């Protein structure tokens, strides 16, 4: 018994210190006037729910919520759609299949800061390849300020984020497709089902559990996206790309009001938690909960 505790004690202590404590600290911080000075004086007056009230009545709150929703929904829809199309495509047998599939993973492995930087260069108003190409082809008459106009910034940032997320969706969905027994397709083909019908009546229903997991994970990850937005726009211009994550950052580390930043962070957790519960319930429904899996 003592040996067993010895094996588990470090991880339990670690989880308590590096997850338990910070989560609790964030809750108490959000109820205090916690500013830069608090770190030196040790004084952070209790203010109850005033930080939440301040955050919720801040005009940026509505903007950040809407941006977060649009950014997340659009990212998920396109990452999933493109990822699924690619996964289906790579089901075919052809030379170089394996090599090309693993090359597609690269965007997922790169540091997000690097990906963001590349997209910033592509979107550059004057010298970026996007504007130069579109101007050259006569699609647009004047350079589009992809990152510096309030109308275009959010779509541009979302495009970069979709690009980052495609490989993750593709790989998991590909794995899901591989586990669908081939004889089902053969049977459907014998019954006269065309490619679309086979997708609609075999692939899609059998892929549902995997799809649900991919979408839930994608959602939780997308809510957290920080690097891509920071490198591309820093939440600007005029909060046009401000999400709850970047706003929390700018309140804490820009305005040095950690109480407000913590309050926004907690709202983010609540949102993530609601979806995480959906995710876990989904896992349970589909009987694939890793937590209970004991092969």
């Amino acid at each position: 018994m003592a040996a067993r505790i010895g094996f588990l004690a470090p991880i339990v202590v670690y989880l308590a210190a590096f997850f338990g404590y910070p989560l609790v600290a964030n809750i108490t911080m959000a109820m205090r006037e916690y500013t830069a000075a608090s770190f030196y004086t040790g004084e952070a007056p209790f203010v109850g729910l005033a930080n939440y009230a301040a955050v919720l009545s801040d005009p940026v709150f509505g903007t950040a919520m809407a941006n977060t929703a649009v950014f997340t929904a659009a990212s998920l829809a396109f990452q999933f759609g493109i990822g699924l199309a690619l996964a289906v495509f790579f089901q075919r047998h052809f030379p170089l299949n394996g090599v090309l599939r693993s090359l597609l993973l690269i965007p997922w492995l790169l540091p997000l800061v690097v990906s963001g930087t590349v997209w910033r260069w592509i979107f550059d108003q004057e010298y970026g390849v996007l504007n130069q190409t579109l101007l050259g082809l006569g699609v647009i008459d004047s350079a589009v300020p992809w990152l510096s106009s309030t109308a275009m910034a959010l779509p541009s940032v979302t495009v970069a984020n979709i690009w980052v997320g495609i490989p993750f969706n593709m790989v998991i969905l590909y794995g899901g497709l591989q586990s669908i027994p081939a004889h089902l397709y053969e049977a459907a083909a014998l019954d006269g089902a065309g490619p679309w019908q086979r997708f609609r009546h075999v692939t899609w229903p059998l892929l549902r559990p995997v799809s649900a997991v991919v979408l839930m994970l994608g959602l939780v990850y997308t809510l957290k996206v920080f690097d891509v937005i920071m490198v591309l726009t820093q939440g600007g211009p005029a909060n046009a790309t401000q999400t709850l994550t970047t706003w929390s950052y700018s309140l804490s580390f820009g305005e040095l009001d950690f109480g407000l930043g913590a309050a926004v962070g907690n709202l983010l957790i609540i949102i993530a938690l609601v979806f995480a519960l959906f995710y876990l319930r989904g896992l349970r429904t589909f009987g694939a909960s890793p937590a209970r899996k004991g092969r």
Partner: protein
Amino acid sequence: MAVRRRVRTAFTTVTALVIVGVLLFPLYWMVNASLQPATGLLETPPRWFPAGGTLDGYRQALASQGRPLLNSIVIAAGTVALTLALSVPAAYALSRFRMRGTGVLLFALLLVQMVPGIVMANSLYAVMNRTGLLSTYPALILADSTVAVPFAVLILRAFMVTIPAELGEAAMVDGAGHGRVLWSVVLPVSRNAMITAALFAFLFSWADFLFAVTLNSDEAVMPVTVGIYRFIGAHTADWNAVMATGVIASIPAAVLLVVAQRYVAAGVTGGALKD
């Protein structure tokens, strides 16, 4: 028939090449820009190929980002060591011992991976400040480990449960304790899972930007992700050097893909989902 099929597969391969080309174009564009002279990047139409290229960008990148690159290596190596030290015994225990609470622990490991990084940064800042660790390597190593440890425990455990229990039991009959079984029986067969966990811990830490930009203000400790970020801010004209830094910062990912390709796919789904 055979000819038609061959034409069809050839067509499919070409289609696949085009798809990959389009999706990887941003990477090509990074490499291309990194090899251009700074002035070559300010031309219309753009230079599509790095013909007559120069390594100026790389020279400038290494001159200004050498230290951050070294810092990234130190921090990532530290994260790998800490992550393995914490997660190997935990994974062993979770795969071997039937105890109350292991289910809760696994659930917690799954759930904490969903905590937004900004929340962690916010409160870790207070913790690091109180402990005097702000702007030190340990602060970043500890913070980065919070991303890697839950993932590593789950991935290692998922592998260790597949090791037949008899393997360890035989050793225990011979008088070996759990420590001995872990070290001499389980670890040797878990090599691949360990490599996967270590590679991903390295990559997570190497790619970290959020903790590096919040928990550190010392240039001597600054990793390359923040280096690039500041670099863009300060020299938006020197895109060749910025892109060269990007290419260098991508090397670990590329190496990982080449040397450990088969472990990568396992890692993508690992921890969160197993088939």
